[in-house]
C-alpha cells in the first residue's frame, strides 16, 4: 500500500515535470518577443556578452514608436473591420442555410447539401486565383470589401449550424406552428436563439481564421495602409528585417489583441474549437 502511494506520488511528480517543461518551451518565444522588444537595437544584437534582459532599462517607449511609425491604428482598423464583416456575413448566411438544411424539407435538399460537403473537401487554394481576378475586376483591391469577399458565405459554418439545428427538440417548433407562427417567425423567435453556442463557435472560428490568414490579404491589399495586421507584419519584415526590437515590438502589437480576447473568453474559445473541430 505504502509503495503504491509512493508510486502515485512519483507519477504525479513526473507528470507535472513534463507539463512544466512543455509550458516553458511554449512560453519562451513569447518571452523572447517581449524581451527583445524592450531592448535597444545595440543590446539586441550584442553577443559578447549576450544579454537576456535589457541592460539600459526596459524601453517600453519602443512600442509607442512602432505604433506611430508603422501606422498600427490603420492596421488594427482594417483587421477589425474585416473580422467584423466576415463574422457577420458568415453567421447570417450560415444560420439561415443551417436552419433550412437542419429542419425543413424541400426538393433538391440532398443535392444542395452535397454542394456544401464538396466545398468543405476541396482545398481552398484552388479558389484563390479566380477570386483574386474577380476582386480585381470589381475594383475591390485594397479595400476592406475585398478582404471580406471570399468569406461572405461559409460551407463549414452551414454544416456546423445544420448540426446545431438538428439537435434541437421537435416539439418546440410544433407548438409554435400550432400557435400560428409561420416558418420565418419560428426561425427568428424560437430556433435561432437556441443555437447560440454553435453561433459563438462559428464566430470565434471565423474571427480567428480571418485574423491569422496571410495569403489573401497579401494578395488583395498590397498597400501598407489598406492591409491587415498579418500581412502588415510580412511587409515590415521585408523592409526592416534587421531592426529586431522594432520587429518584435510590431509582432507583440499584432498578437496582443487576440491574446487578450482569448484570455477573457477562454472557455468559449476552447469549446468553440473543440466542438466545431474546424481546420485552422
Amino acid at each position, binding site marked *: 500500500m505504502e509503495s503504491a502511494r509512493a508510486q502515485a506520488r512519483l507519477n504525479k511528480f513526473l*507528470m507535472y515535470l513534463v*507539463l512544466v517543461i*512543455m*509550458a516553458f518551451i*511554449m*512560453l519562451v*518565444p*513569447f518571452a*523572447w518577443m517581449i524581451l527583445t522588444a524592450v531592448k535597444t537595437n545595440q543590446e539586441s*544584437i550584442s*553577443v559578447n556578452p*549576450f544579454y537576456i534582459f535589457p541592460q539600459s532599462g526596459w524601453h517600453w517607449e519602443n512600442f509607442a514608436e512602432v505604433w506611430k511609425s508603422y501606422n498600427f491604428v490603420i492596421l488594427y482598423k482594417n483587421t477589425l473591420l474585416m473580422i467584423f464583416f466576415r463574422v457577420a456575413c458568415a453567421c447570417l*448566411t450560415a444560420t*439561415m*442555410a443551417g*436552419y*433550412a*438544411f437542419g429542419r*425543413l*424539407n*424541400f426538393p433538391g*435538399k440532398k443535392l*444542395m447539401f452535397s*454542394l*456544401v460537403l464538396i*466545398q468543405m*473537401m476541396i*482545398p481552398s487554394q*484552388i*479558389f*484563390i*486565383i*479566380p*477570386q483574386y481576378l*474577380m476582386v480585381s475586376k470589381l475594383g475591390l483591391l485594397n479595400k476592406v470589401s475585398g478582404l471580406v469577399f471570399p468569406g461572405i*458565405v461559409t*460551407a463549414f459554418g*452551414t454544416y456546423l449550424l445544420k448540426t446545431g439545428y438538428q439537435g434541437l427538440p421537435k416539439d418546440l417548433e410544433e407548438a409554435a406552428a400550432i400557435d400560428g407562427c*409561420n*416558418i420565418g417567425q419560428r426561425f427568428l423567435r424560437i430556433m435561432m436563439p437556441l443555437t447560440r453556442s454553435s453561433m459563438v463557435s462559428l464566430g470565434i472560428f471565423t474571427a*480567428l481564421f480571418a485574423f*491569422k490568414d*496571410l*495569403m489573401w490579404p497579401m*494578395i488583395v491589399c498590397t498597400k501598407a495602409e489598406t492591409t491587415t*495586421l*498579418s*500581412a502588415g*507584419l510580412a511587409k515590415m519584415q521585408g523592409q526592416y*528585417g534587421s531592426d529586431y526590437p522594432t*520587429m*518584435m515590438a510590431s509582432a507583440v502589437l499584432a*498578437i496582443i489583441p487576440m*491574446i487578450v480576447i482569448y484570455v477573457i473568453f*477562454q472557455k468559449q474559445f*476552447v469549446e468553440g*474549437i473543440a466542438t466545431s*473541430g474546424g*481546420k*485552422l
Partner: protein
Amino acid sequence: MKEPKAKMSAAAKNEAVWAWAFIAPTILGLIILNFYPAVNTVYQSFCKTGDFGRGNTFVGLANYSAALSAGETWHSLWNTIKYAIIEVPFGVVIALILAVFLNKKLKGTSAFRTIFFLPMVCAPAAVAMVWKWLYNQQFGLLNNIFHTNIAWISDPKLAWISIGVIGVWSVIGYNMVLFISGLQEIPGDYYEAAAIDGATGIRQFLHITVPLLSPTTFFIVQTRLIGALTVFDLMFMVMDKTNVALQNTQSIVYLFYTYAFTNGNKGYGATLVVILVAFIMIVTVIMQRAEKKFVFYN
C-alpha cells in the same frame, strides 16, 4: 420523401419556398465564390497567361508538362511531405500525452491548457518572425544560450526540421484541445473495470485510451495532414528569397504563390494548384482506406 411537384401540398410548397429563400445566399455564394473558381482554375491551368494578366491563350497540356518535368515541382512536393512528416506525428503524439495528463484533474490544469493553446490565437506571421529571430545564427537566443553556431534555417540539411519544429509548436494546443474533448467522452467505468483487473497506467492507456480515442485521433491526423500539405505562412515568413535552403524547404503552396502572384504567371500557378489538389485527393482516399482499418468505432 420524393414527392412529385404536382402532388405537393400547400404546406409543403410553403416550406420549400422558405427553405430555398434561406439557402439561396449560401448556395449562390458557393457557386460564385467556390465552384466557378474551382472550374476556372482548372481551365486556366490549360492556358498561358498573357502579359499584364490579359489574353489567355489555350496551350493544352503545356503547363502540365512543364510543371511535371520541372525539378522544383517535385522538390517542393517532397519538401511539403517532409514538413508533414514532422508536424503531424510529433504534433499529435505530444498533444496526446499532454491531453492525457491534463485530463487527470491535476491542480493548475486550466493554466497549462491556456498556455499550450496560446500559439493557436497568434498570427502565424508573428510566430514565424519570433522563431526566425530565435534561430538567428549570429544573434539568436538558441545559438547564444547553447554556445553553438548552427545555421538553423539556412543549412539545407537542417532547415526543414527547424521549420517543422515551429509547426509542431504551433499546433500542439489545437490538437490537445480536440484530444481532451475526445478523452472526456470515454466512460469512466472502462478504467474502473480495468483497475479491478489490475491494469494500470500505461496498460490502461494502450488498451483503453488509444482504441477508444481512435476516431478523435483519426480526425486530428486527417485535418492536420491536409493543413500541413498546404503549409505556406511559416515558409513564407521564415525563408527569405535569398536563403540558400529555400529550395529544400519551400512548400508547393509557396511555389504556387511565387508563380501566380509574385511572377504573375496565373496559368502556371493554376497548374501547380491542380497538381496539389490531385495530390491531396489521393492522400484523402488513402486516409479513408486507413480509417476502416485502424479506427475503432464503438
